């Protein structure tokens, strides 16, 4: 996977990519271990909150209200941010966002940037664009640094290097930081990263950040993190450029009370993030003297226009759905072909990239509902998945599957046809049925797409009599 860009427009369909990922036993072990640890921590700190369900509801209400009035709150944010000395830019799509950020970095006079909280920049492949413009980007989030040095791709929105274990990280650091004597304890690795990054923090004059939240009421921007590296990026450079999806806005400062409880507990099982940074505009002699915010649409208004898909934008990027998802736990994040993996990726990516780019993702779920259960803002992910599947079906038109489905649909609309189909099914399966040791009939091989079933499963042969036949004979015999 290393080096491959996670681009939904070019990535293989999910089942293919999943098969490849599942062949990597080390990756599967790492993903399983990490998700289990985070899930257990999350469950513990959520259980200690007696009002968790009310908090979830409050989170949902805040996000829903924001999305219903997004234009209003974005304009309010722009007004207040500008008033306090920030410069707001609007980007319609990824290309425009890349262009704006690149131009702003150049205007800052630097050919290097330090970066933090950069999933949105991963969404638009900003680092490649910067590199093409002769600008070197240094990721400073520890996990993002591991990904960058390992020429890898993030596999989780909160823990991007979740698929790597400590030994693998040590190898990357040894190689890339030229540290042959590096120890293997977590503190050794943290120390190496600290030394490596400190020099960048003190030297590089331009910072690029993402944002967890934009606060309309104050024009402030909020980032929460665990390491403090973000705070360095937000305070040390002369120029700070923040790029955020337009969905990141919150109406009031007070709304942070709700989301800053929901987010850390859901994301990493922490009661509170160790570092909560909120900054508003610029102030002479304190922090960056030039501050830009790039508000990026990149298909978000289209999602907003879709009544059923809209709730996708409520996401506060905690990644709890990924950790809870039994599909993600098997495949890890790269199989989703996008920086947004797991259940949220399965609904967000197809909508961001237009449906034709990501046909398989809405089907990358058993609809078990574990994602919905843990979502801190109650996004009904299974419902959105089904909605997107409907869009895929409508887009695809007629094919073998849709013909079979239409036929089945027709059968179910008539009792007589249903009975005929039951009889026909018994006849059609007969050549495939083999008796097992107990004398029971089983099918061990099915043709075509149904063969997916018989790869690892047998199928019991149909019984001699359907329930309704038994019911009718029972009525006649009076037993």
């Amino acid at each position, binding site marked *: 996977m290393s080096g491959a860009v996670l681009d939904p427009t070019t990535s293989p369909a999910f089942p293919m990519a*999943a098969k490849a990922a599942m062949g990597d036993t080390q990756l599967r072990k790492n993903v399983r271990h990490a998700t289990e640890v985070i899930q257990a921590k999350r469950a513990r700190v959520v259980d200690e909150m007696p009002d968790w369900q009310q908090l979830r509801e409050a989170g949902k209400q805040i996000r829903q209200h924001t999305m219903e009035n997004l234009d209003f709150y974005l304009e309010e944010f722009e007004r207040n941010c500008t008033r306090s000395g920030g410069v707001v830019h609007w980007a319609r799509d990824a290309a425009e966002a890349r262009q704006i950020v690149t131009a702003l970095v150049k205007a800052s006079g630097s050919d290097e940037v330090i970066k933090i909280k950069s999933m949105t920049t991963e969404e638009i492949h900003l680092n490649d664009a910067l590199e093409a413009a002769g600008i070197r980007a240094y990721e400073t989030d520890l996990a993002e640094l591991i990904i960058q040095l390992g020429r890898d791709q993030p596999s989780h929105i909160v823990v991007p290097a979740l698929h790597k274990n400590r030994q693998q990280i040590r190898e990357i650091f040894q190689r890339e930081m030229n540290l042959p004597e590096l120890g293997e304890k977590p503190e050794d690795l943290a120390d190496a990263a600290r030394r490596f990054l400190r020099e960048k923090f003190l030297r590089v004059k331009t910072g690029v950040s993402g944002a967890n939240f934009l606060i309309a009421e104050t024009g402030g921007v909020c980032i929460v993190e665990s390491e403090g590296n973000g705070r360095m990026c937000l305070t040390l450079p002369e120029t700070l450029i923040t790029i955020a999806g337009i969905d990141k806005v919150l109406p009031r400062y007070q709304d942070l009370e709700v989301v800053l409880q929901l987010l850390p507990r859901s994301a990493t099982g922490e009661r509170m993030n160790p570092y909560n940074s909120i900054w508003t505009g610029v102030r002479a002699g304190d922090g960056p003297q030039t501050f830009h915010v790039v508000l990026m649409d990149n298909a978000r208004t289209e999602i907003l226009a879709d009544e059923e898909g809209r709730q996708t934008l409520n996401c506060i990027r905690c990644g709890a759905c990924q950790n809870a998802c*039994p599909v993600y736990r098997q495949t890890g994040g790269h199989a989703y072909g996008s920086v947004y993996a797991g259940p949220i990726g399965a609904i967000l990516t197809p909508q961001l990239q237009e449906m034709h780019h990501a046909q398989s993702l809405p089907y990358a779920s058993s609809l078990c509902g*574990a994602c919905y259960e843990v979502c801190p803002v109650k996004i009904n992910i299974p419902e959105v998945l089904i909605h997107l599947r409907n869009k895929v079906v409508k887009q695809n038109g007629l094919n073998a599957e849709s013909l079979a*489905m239409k036929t089945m649909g027709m059968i179910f609309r008539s*009792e007589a046809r249903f009975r005929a189909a039951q009889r026909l099914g018994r006849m059609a399966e007969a050549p495939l049925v083999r008796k097992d040791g107990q004398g029971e009939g089983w099918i061990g091989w099915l043709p075509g797409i149904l063969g997916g079933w018989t790869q690892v499963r047998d199928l*019991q042969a149909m019984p001699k*009599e359907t329930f309704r036949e038994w019911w009718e004979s029972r009525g006649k015999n009076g037993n």
Partner: protein
Amino acid sequence: MRVSLFITCYNDTLFPETGKAVVRVLERLGHTVEFPAGQTCCGQMHWNTGYQAEALPLVARFVEQFKGAEAVVVPSSSCVAMIRDHYPKMAASLKDEKLIAEVEALVPRVFEFSEFLTKRLELEDVGAYYPHRVTYHASCHGLRNLGLGDGPQRLLKAVRGIDLVEIEGLEQCCGFGGTFAVKNAEVSSAMLAEKTTAVLNTGAEACTACDNSCLMHIQGGLHRQRTGVKTVHLAEILAGEEGAR
């Protein structure tokens, strides 16, 4: 009580023993069972796979069959979830005022089988005997959409002779997911492998659940591995009687 049975299309076709067991239990408890003959399918497969146009007409069909029922009992948690979670929205999307009202009136009277026993009839002991070691799998739709909680386990604990053993990862999906098992066969298989391993680790003779779709999947995996461990719908355990088998 006059109970209408919605057997569901796959139980009717593939698992008639489950239906017979439901009838046996309900009659043993003194209820009258009716079987509206025109019933077919709830539309879950179509709906969940994205074929909304094919699923929509089945709502009216279901209502037509069951609208007079005092209670509708369904031995399938996923089909009940389909009805409860989606029928009101489906009726609304059809913009049929009469249908909307009928769905609204009918849906609260539709129960998953174990739910009917524990919540509607408020029973735990239904007078069953089943002298086997059994483990219970909590199907996702029953667990999360219907909120069955420990209802099925309470029913099982009251069964005489049973040795109920808890499975590890009770709340983990078995990996069936309808067309998911075929469209994402590799991932589904990996999820199934975890589930069958958990079943085998319990040392149970049989794995039970409130949904034959999960069980068909788990049974398919257990049979392929020649484990000898069976799957059996909860209703079939509750139908067991001393001396009957």
